[in-house]
């Protein structure tokens, strides 16, 4: 697990600027903030990893970017998500018209969903589902779009694409469906691809193939990728920068090298300790440590630092009063922890 930053182009204006994104769901038990004041940039051509345990708000963040959170029923999406469009204009995705967001979806931002088994429509062929976005956005004939669909299936590594376009989703294996989903997402050549745990449902060899595929596609097209996962091994392999989320907030943000080399937030440290490492398998008897405790119940968030009930560095009245701010430790490394200097200096817990 050696982090290898790929082609990060840090210069130039960001492609996407998320500022103070807040998503509240209204349930029977009242309002739940699934995402709470999240801000980050996505730079052109980079791979940004979004990591965190289950329920930390990764999928909700990405759905908010696609503007796919249903606002009905008292749900609220606040903040701004500014996208630099192909035309050069910058627009706030949360404020644009329905027509404009529809034009952006698929063509400029596309998403591969977490659930490959249920994200394809069972009654339409793979070809039809890949082609329909092309027909809709580019107004080409169905036949031409199907020809493109064949190329796309070939591109994502589906064998016999001519035959496969006539298949229905249930005739494909999980790995093939996820590839088909990627083909659907790539159909209109987006410059931002959000991949929400595109590999979790798959076995290890297929995971590796899909990751390679995404990286290859990125090299060809120069698109940016937001890669969501809770597998830090995958992060080290694909990401340029990493956002660590906990309980709806970003708790650490850094390039992949500093994050793995010098994690500052105790939560990130815990995540890293819970990843199996190659040198461990060769006999070293260091136990894998899971982070003790559980992700907090979103309806009963701990006061102050939401991680404090699980943190070894916890100090009463310092950590459990106010939510710590996201502070820059380095120009490219921010952390949300009241004691990050102590943690960095190795002051024992």
């Amino acid at each position, binding site marked *: 697990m050696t982090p290898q930053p790929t082609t990060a182009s840090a210069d130039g204006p960001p492609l996407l600027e998320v500022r103070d994104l807040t998503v509240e769901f209204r349930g029977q038990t009242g309002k739940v903030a699934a995402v709470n004041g999240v801000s980050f940039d996505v730079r052109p051509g980079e791979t940004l990893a979004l990591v965190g345990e289950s329920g930390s708000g990764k999928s909700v963040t990405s759905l908010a970017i696609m503007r796919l959170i249903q606002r009905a029923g008292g749900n609220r999406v606040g903040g701004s998500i500014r996208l630099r469009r192909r035309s050069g204009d910058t627009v706030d995705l949360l404020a644009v018209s329905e027509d404009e967001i529809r*034009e952006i979806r698929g*063509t400029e931002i596309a*998403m591969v969903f977490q659930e490959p088994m249920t994200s394809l429509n*069972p*009654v339409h062929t793979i070809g039809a589902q890949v082609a329909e976005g092309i027909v809709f956005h580019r107004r080409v004939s169905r036949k031409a779009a199907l020809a493109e669909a064949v190329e796309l299936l070939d591109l994502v590594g589906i064998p016999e694409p001519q035959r496969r376009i006539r298949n229905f989703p249930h005739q494909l294996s999980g790995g093939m469906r996820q590839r088909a989903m990627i083909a659907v*997402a790539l159909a209109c050549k987006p410059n931002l691809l959000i991949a929400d745990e595109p590999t979790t449902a798959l076995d290890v060899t297929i995971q590796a193939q899909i990751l390679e595929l995404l990286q290859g596609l990125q090299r060809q097209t120069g698109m940016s990728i937001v890669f969501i996962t809770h597998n830090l091994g995958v992060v080290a392999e694909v990401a340029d920068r990493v956002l660590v989320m906990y309980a709806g907030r970003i708790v650490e943000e850094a390039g992949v090298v500093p994050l793995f080399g010098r994690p500052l937030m105790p939560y990130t440290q815990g995540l890293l300790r819970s990843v199996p490492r190659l040198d461990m398998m060769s006999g070293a008897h260091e136990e894998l440590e899971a982070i003790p405790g559980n992700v907090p119940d979103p309806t009963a968030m701990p006061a102050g630092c939401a991680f404090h009930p699980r943190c070894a560095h916890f100090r009463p009245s310092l950590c459990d009063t106010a939510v710590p701010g996201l502070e820059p430790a380095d120009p490219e490394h921010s952390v949300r922890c009241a004691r990050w200097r102590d943690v960095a200096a190795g002051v024992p817990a």
Partner: protein
Amino acid sequence: MSSFLTRRLIQSLILLWIVSMIGFALLHLTPGGPLSQFANTPGMSDEDLTRLAEQMGLNRPLPVQYLEWFGRLLTGDWGRSYRDQSPVLYVIGSRLGATLQLMITATLIAVIVGGFVGVVGAVRRYSFFDQFVTIGAMVALSIPTFWFGLVVIYVFSVKLGWLPPGNISPVGNESFIVFVHHLIGPSMVLGLVTTAIWSRFMRSSMLDVINQDYVRTARAKGLSERIVLVRHVLRNALLPMITIAGLEVPTLLSGALVTETVFTWPGMGRLFLDSIGYRDYPVVMGLLTFTAILVIIGNLLADILYVVADPRIRLQ
């Protein structure tokens, strides 16, 4: 696919066989059995009856009689009406068209009106429209068909004079317009319950689909809301409706019984009630068997349609 259809076909045949057994049993359980048609004939003596029974083979073992009767059933010899001695199948056939016209029109009303109401109710869930039609459907389901028929005749025929009070068409005037004009009232009455049922099932089926992951995928492609709703939501929501449609056949048949009586519509429903009045057992029995066959055929058609519409079953 073929294994599914084969299974359903075999099930249907077994059902038909059971229906025929019941039909046969009922025929022999009727007062006087198959001989009753002659029992009341003036001047018929007991010896005559015994001789008749022998001639008709009624003293042979029941299984043999059943096989013979079943053979006649298959070849279309369903016996003769007591009333005018015409063949039962002919009597039924002469009324079938009128009932089918009514049932098909009522189904069309249910599918179009109920379908529309269900789709809009699901898309605008909890809106005023949704709540209004929810209550409307509940009311519709609790209105007795008989009473609703009388209300329709009273309001539209007697008070407003818009619709004829019944019958398929006045003598000597058989244009299509007149026919449709006569069809409106009874179809509305017959379709009411089915429309209400259809709208409820359509709404819940739409809601089941609307939250599916693949609908989100469709939205993520940037398709228009209309395409998302029609191509992705409605297309899938209609699948269970095919089964519902098959199950509606008995509801429609029993509704036709009442509707045809209220509107003096010359269909099978009225024939059934008339025949019971005349104790015309062969016709009553024939109608029971025939409607059972209709119900089974309806379900079988629904199964076939389902297989055609759902690739997951078609391409098993």
